[in-house]
């Protein structure tokens, strides 16, 4: 317990330090706009990856509809700031809560499904949400909403990134989180042990959706425009790739995955013709050589101790 507290304090100090370093660099004008937006994009991807990891990695539910929840947060928060003049933090929360409710509505019926059937159902829900935006004139149809104020800055993204990581991490280490992990490891055994599997699956789904919604809101207020096409199933795949590449069931893995993939994509911008070819080759190679992802189920810690082993052998998702 003592060590835990000490680590917590060190963690807070280091994160504050990073925050301050980047903030100082930004305010001194050393970082160009492009790199600021890259850092913010990385952070948004971290939020998306960590939250999807809670569903796919820790609870073992194969969801590929994350972009749908992201779009709910993005649209709702943009409407709030544009048409209702709500302050930004409140608008973000509205978006997040709406995404949570959608997560509940979708989760309750569909989480009865297993494996690939759940995957296609979540993909379907994601596409249905996208088609609803596409057909709603109020939010601009195909061209989407534009002129969204640029309210997202490094401070807001940093705060939400920390909240996401803390909440997911504490949840996973709580009784509820352990229940979720037991569902991943063996659903039938978990049920036999008296764990209300549907309840925990839905809870994990709702938490994941909440942060996806927040990430959507942050991204809408960062890039000025949202349209239905930004949230198609390709976007869901992108988030899934972050999670699996980092390592299913490892929060630090998702963070590394988000950083690595966003940086690769960004650095390749100068080579448009072969950008996606290199990107996909790297993806295949990384998976061949690290099939469990860069981190496996391990977490990065200051002692570099292999923590993941305590969950037992990781089986298929």
């Amino acid at each position, binding site marked *: 317990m003592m060590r835990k507290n000490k680590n917590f304090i060190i963690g807070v100090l280091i994160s504050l330090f990073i925050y301050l370093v980047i903030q100082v660099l930004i305010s001194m004008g050393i970082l160009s706009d492009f790199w600021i937006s890259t850092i913010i994009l990385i952070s948004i991807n971290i939020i998306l990856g960590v939250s999807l990891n809670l569903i796919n990695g820790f609870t073992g539910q194969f969801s590929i509809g994350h972009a749908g929840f992201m779009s709910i947060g993005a649209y709702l928060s943009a409407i709030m700031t544009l048409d209702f003049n709500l302050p930004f933090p409140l608008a973000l929360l509205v978006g997040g809560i709406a995404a949570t409710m959608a997560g509940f509505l979708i989760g309750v019926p*569909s989480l009865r499904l297993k494996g*690939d*059937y759940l995957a296609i159902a979540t993909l*379907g829900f994601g596409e249905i949400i996208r*088609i609803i935006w596409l057909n709603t004139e109020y939010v601009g149809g195909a061209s989407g909403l534009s002129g969204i104020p640029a309210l997202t800055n490094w401070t807001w993204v940093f705060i939400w990134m920390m909240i996401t990581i803390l909440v997911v991490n504490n949840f996973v280490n709580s009784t509820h989180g352990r229940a979720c992990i037991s569902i991943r490891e063996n659903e039938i055994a978990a049920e036999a042990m008296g764990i209300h599997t549907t309840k925990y699956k839905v809870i994990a789904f709702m938490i994941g959706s909440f942060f996806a919604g927040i990430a959507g809101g942050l991204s809408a207020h960062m890039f000025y425009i949202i349209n239905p096409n930004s949230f198609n199933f390709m976007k869901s795949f992108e988030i899934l790739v972050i999670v*699996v590449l980092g390592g299913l069931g490892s929060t630090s893995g998702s963070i590394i995955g988000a950083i690595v993939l966003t940086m690769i994509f960004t650095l390749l911008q100068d080579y448009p013709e072969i950008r996606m070819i290199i990107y*996909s080759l790297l993806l295949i190679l990384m998976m061949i050589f690290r099939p469990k992802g860069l981190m496996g189920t391990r977490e990065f810690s200051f002692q570099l101790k292999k923590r993941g082993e305590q969950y037992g052998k990781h089986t*298929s998702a």
Partner: protein
Amino acid sequence: MEYITQQLINGISVGSIYALIALGYTMVYGIIKLINFAHGDIFMVGAFVGLVSAKMFQVQGFDPIWVFIFSILLSMIVSAILGVIIERIAYKPLRNASRISILITAIGVSFLLENGGIFFIGPQAQGFPEIIPKKQYHLFGSIQLDSNQIMILGVTFLLMVLLQLIVHKTKIGKAMRAVSFDMEAAHLMGINVNTTISATFAIGSALAAAAGVIYGMTYNSFDPLMGIIPGLKAFVAAVLGGIGIIPGAFIGGLFLGIIETTVSSIGYSLWRDGVAFAILILILIFKPSGLFGKNVREKV
């Protein structure tokens, strides 16, 4: 009444193309439980090989029917080899990894084929030669049907029966079923697992290529991203019918085609894909493993 019949014919013709692509999808899934997301892109490669070879053979002045047979065979062979290579390089090293890791690799392969296509062929859509000229038939006055629609349905049905025979009546089929049931036990029984899986991929990819050529002929166009949407639709069709079940893919494809056409024909074309997905989800909720899927009880 005529309107409804005409729309039903339209639906079946769209559906039989979905079914044709779904056959390969569902077969690969049935044997090695891999959602091969690259299937739609092998379909694209097959269409491209068909396009090039059809142009080549047409210049040589062959009879249309031979042009068709030669180019579809060539594209099936090339794609089968490509499928085996992809399996050997990208999927085999991951055979013991979690299924979601292989899925990500499959997504990577899919991106690679799409963007490789853009790089080498160019992103613009181009025309696909009309290999066999279409003939129009009129039934009961104004109901229309063309030779291509009949051909697709026929080919799809034939391939489904053939595939079913291969899987259930031949030696390699038996090996496939054994591998699908328990890979390790099959290996212990002296079945060459690698060869069997390669054969699965070869057949699956050849089916995708055949679908690609027929698709190109039907819609007269080719582009490197043409595989994405049909691939997704075929996946949905396969799941609808119960993924892994060959007749299920056939029925699932037809069903999906008819749903889509029905939604469009009553004037809600904007919501077509949304309704198709909603029906898919509804069916899954009431029948969690598709229309024809067996509900396997999990052993404790």
